[in-house]
């Protein structure tokens, strides 16, 4: 017993020593003084996300625009807000009382563990110097070469991820995306996955699925980006990706005991509303923040995000009203989230009327999927992560190919409705690639984790509830 205790402590202390040591060792190389000393007169800040090729001078600290940086920092905070508490409460309110903490825990631990993964190597894999258009190399691991006070500069393409904010601002903004994406998947496997298996799967998935896909679409020289795929804030990278992974997880894990007839309704619908409302607010950081500056593009992304969401929430309510006799609150918030999802890839490329079109579609398509198709197919996508994010994200990525217009963003492209059917094809290709990759790799990862440690909670644990069995806690006291 004593020895056992000893080893535990040794482990803890050793962990700390290693991290502390490595922290010290790495420290000097992680500083910011890597900016070229060239006394170049900086070019004026460029609002468009991809800097024009006519400005090939590497940026310096003087290029940092305080308004743009303030906007990206607050946007980063808003995107964190989307994971904790927003997504946590949106999902947490919808599960049964006995599993509320398990969902909150999953969201919270992701905010911890993926953030560390990101600074250690995730960011470098996703956005670091390109290897064969497929993945970033490890030059930026431990945030080496990621400056705190000068904007990023890519010598190969003579362009910057964001020319008016410090490189680390871009890094932290993107980190929040990496955190929330595996969080979305939780909705599919809620109430039945073992916590340990979840944690291992999430880390693997973030590294092997998220980071490469992000590189393909957003990384300098990633192949989907080069192909011309438009994804302003993450329709493919975030929502389709997570939605498909959710579908696979739901299928691999199987149904919850008692599904579909003996499930209780959402244990705390106001919590879900709180989550949805905060998602809406936070999503302005997600979409308008993706302008990476606080000019007209941010304004436009902000406006279309809001309008599409409103249209989708209203549409879902009307669908409920028409087909189920009553508009429901769960319907309105589901629609709103669907609208947010769908407008995401389009938010920097469409105008307000496009936003309404996308929003209406996002109220109808997920509704059909969740209400009609899912019950027929009979798998258990517990909180409809696939139904909302997968379907909504796919609709949004395609709709971007319909309504995109260069009058909104000259760095973008025109879509079908503006005379360019080719863009629709490109969008479809990007969607297809993402679906196939996420589907196959998620499946393989799940199978591996299942083999090694088992994915699913014991039936007894599932009945008692994961809060108590996995975490030894209960959400609410009964007696006072």
């Amino acid at each position, binding site marked *: 017993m004593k020895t056992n205790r000893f080893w535990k402590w040794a482990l803890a202390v050793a962990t700390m020593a290693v991290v502390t040591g490595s922290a010290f060792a790495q420290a000097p190389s992680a500083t910011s003084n890597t900016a070229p000393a060239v006394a170049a007169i900086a070019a004026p800040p460029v609002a468009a996300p991809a800097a024009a090729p006519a400005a090939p001078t590497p940026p310096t600290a003087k290029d940092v625009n305080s308004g743009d940086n303030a906007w990206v920092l607050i946007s980063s905070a808003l995107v964190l807000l989307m994971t904790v508490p927003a997504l946590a409460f949106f999902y947490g309110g919808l599960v049964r009382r006995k599993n509320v903490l398990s969902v909150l825990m999953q969201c919270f631990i992701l905010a911890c563990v993926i953030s560390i993964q990101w600074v250690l190597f995730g960011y470098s894999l996703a956005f670091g110097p390109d290897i064969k258009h497929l993945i970033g190399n490890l030059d930026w691991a431990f945030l080496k070469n990621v400056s705190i006070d000068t904007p990023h500069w890519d010598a190969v393409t003579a362009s910057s991820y964001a020319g008016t904010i410090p490189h680390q601002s871009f890094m932290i903004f993107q980190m929040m995306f990496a955190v929330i994406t595996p969080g979305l998947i939780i909705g599919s496997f809620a109430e039945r996955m073992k916590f340990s298996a979840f944690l291992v799967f999430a880390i693997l998935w973030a590294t092997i699925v998220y980071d490469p896909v992000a590189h393909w679409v957003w990384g300098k020289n990633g192949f989907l980006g080069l192909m011309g795929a438009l994804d302003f804030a993450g329709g493919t990278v975030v929502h389709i990706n997570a939605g498909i992974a959710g579908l696979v997880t739901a299928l691999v894990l199987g149904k919850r005991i008692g599904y579909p007839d003996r499930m209780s309704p959402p244990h705390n619908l106001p919590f879900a509303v709180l989550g949805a409302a905060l998602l809406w607010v936070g999503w302005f950081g997600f979409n308008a923040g993706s302008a990476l500056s606080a000019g007209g593009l941010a304004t436009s992304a902000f406006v279309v995000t809001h309008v599409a969401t409103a249209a989708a929430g209203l549409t879902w309510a009307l669908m*409920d009203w028409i087909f189920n006799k009553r508009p429901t609150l769960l319907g309105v918030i*589901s629609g709103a989230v669907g609208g947010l999802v769908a407008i995401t890839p389009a938010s920097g490329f469409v105008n307000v009327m496009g936003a309404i079109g996308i929003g209406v579609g996002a109220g109808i398509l997920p509704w059909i999927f969740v209400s009609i198709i899912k019950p027929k197919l009979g798998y258990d996508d517990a909180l409809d992560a696939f139904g909302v994010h997968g379907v909504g994200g796919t609709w949004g990525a395609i709709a971007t190919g319909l309504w995109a217009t260069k009058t909104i963003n000259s760095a973008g492209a025109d879509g079908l409705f503006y005379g360019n059917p080719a863009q629709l094809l490109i969008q479809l290709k990007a969607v297809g690639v993402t679906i196939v990759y996420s589907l196959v790799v998620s499946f393989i990862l799940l199978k591996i984790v299942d083999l090694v440690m088992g994915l699913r909670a014991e039936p007894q644990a599932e009945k008692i509830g994961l809060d108590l069995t996995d975490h030894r806690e209960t959400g609410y006291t009964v007696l006072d």
Partner: protein
Amino acid sequence: MKYIIAIIQPDRLEEVMQRLEEKEIHLVTVTNVMGRGRQKGIAEVYRSHREAGTLLKKVKLEIAINDAYLKPALDAIIQGGRTGQVGDGKIFVMNLDECIRIRTGETGGPAIG
């Protein structure tokens, strides 16, 4: 001594309590319960999934009482609880063998009031 258990509609609680008060029956214990009866519940719908919703919110009253007060108590509950619609509930009466007031240790009839 009798032990009365009454299941009533939640929104009749105040009314019943008042009627009991009028008959000088002051002591009562109240519990939130769910009931399945003849009254059809309203089916709830979540993302188009209908929940049967057979269990409805009800309120349970428990009253321990001396035999002399039984009739007035039943009357009060019926008067206060009746709306004439299905779902008004039931009253059950059982025999009570003993009653003790914890504070004083009194037993039987005097302890009940």
